[in-house]
């Protein structure tokens, strides 16, 4: 896409391009996983607005720091009895 060309009709573009855009730089808080507590229910994976929860074989393996913007939704949505994710202040780390 160059400026002199006409733009894609109505702004319709191929899907999945958000992956190419880093939102990790916005982050002030970082999710920290307590692996011992996590029961791999993957509610955080469903709820993360940025697809930043990484999994393998149905198990939570970590966070994609290129895309995690530190919103804390995962920490809030992790079941009350588990609370395996805490949010740490980036500058304190």
């Amino acid at each position, binding site marked *: 896409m160059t400026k002199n060309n006409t733009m894609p*009709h109505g702004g319709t573009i191929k899907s*999945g391009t958000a992956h190419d855009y880093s939102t990790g730089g916005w982050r002030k808080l970082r999710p920290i996983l307590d692996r011992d507590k996590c029961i791999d229910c993957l509610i955080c994976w469903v709820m993360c607005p940025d697809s930043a929860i990484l999994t393998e074989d149905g198990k939570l393996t970590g966070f994609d720091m290129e895309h995690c913007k530190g919103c804390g939704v995962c920490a809030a949505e992790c079941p009350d009895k588990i609370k395996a994710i805490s949010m740490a202040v980036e500058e304190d780390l």
Partner: protein
Amino acid sequence: MSAALKQKKVGLTGNSAVAYAMMQIDPDVVPAYPITPSTTIIEEFSSYHADGKVTGELITVESEHSAMSASVGAAAAGARVMTATSAQGLALMWEVLYIASGMRLPIIMPIVNRALSAPINIHCDHSDSMGARDSGWIQLYAETVQEAYDNTIMAVRIAEESDVLLPIMSCQDGFITSHAIECLELIEDKDVKDFVGEYVPKDTLLDVDNPVTMGAMALPEFYMEFKRDQSNAMTRAKDAVSKISAEFAETFGREYGLFESYKLDDADVAIVVLSSAAGTTKVAIDKLRAEGKKVGLLRPRLYRPWPHAEIAEALKNVKVVCVLDRADSMNDFGGPLFGDVRSALFDLDTAPKVFGRIFGLGGRDYKVVDAEGVIGELYKVLETGKIEQLNRYITI
């Protein structure tokens, strides 16, 4: 096709005629929320839906903001979408109107023109659709029930024209046209279906083999190029209106242009006015023509895009023009139509003198005697060469 396919003559209100056209078009999706005076369009369409006369989805939503949002969603999914509204309903759709046009979704929306609050008023003026004149929607204005019906059918083709793909408002005057029974010719269902044809969307969210993102961001590097493309599509819409109106005339025998000229050829003075008020004005013109006064009328049918060059050409030999606006821009410089007409004439070597009058707000009657008063003012300017008041309210 040969002219004048079989049609039946009936008496219908403007809203019944538009609802009938919608039934014949049978759009894929109609998200709707009722508001006076457009309510009976949706009411009657709901009856057609309940009676199994249409096959599309009718979604009764909780507000006009939702009606336009659902229209955008359905159109993005690849559906042919229609809805209808008036006044506050259109105002509540505001932010989504721009999303529909920016995403180039050819949504078709009959508008029944009504005054905006406050004060609360349910009667006709053009403040609702005039406020949306820069929203990137094509706008047609109908004088009669027949034209409101015909425009609804043509609107489908204009919006969906492959080099246009923009949403369209097809406007008629609230109550004056929408609730008055006039005689009109209805086209056979099959012929309407043949004329509008099948809608083939350019992109669709439902094509899972070719997944797309719609409504993505475009920051300063690209936003302006998108707007330029949209603006160019709006420019092309003018030719689409001419082309499709010509095809309609050839098929069904009724001719419509970008605007209507009435006794304009030899006119010294002329009135420019939209919609139903043109009918009243023609009666006054006929009366004064009988007295030897050379008066004419220009009634824009297409208002967005604005056919400025054609209108300048049509008015270039007129000496004085009065533009009647059924909406005030509240800018100390008259109504929107006044500004557009005056600007269109500016580059003529001998531009007519142009003044504006605001009339008929909130359903105030505009009578033959009011049109005669305007013609009197036109002649005064013709004789003295001086406009005493550039803009003011009449019918007050």
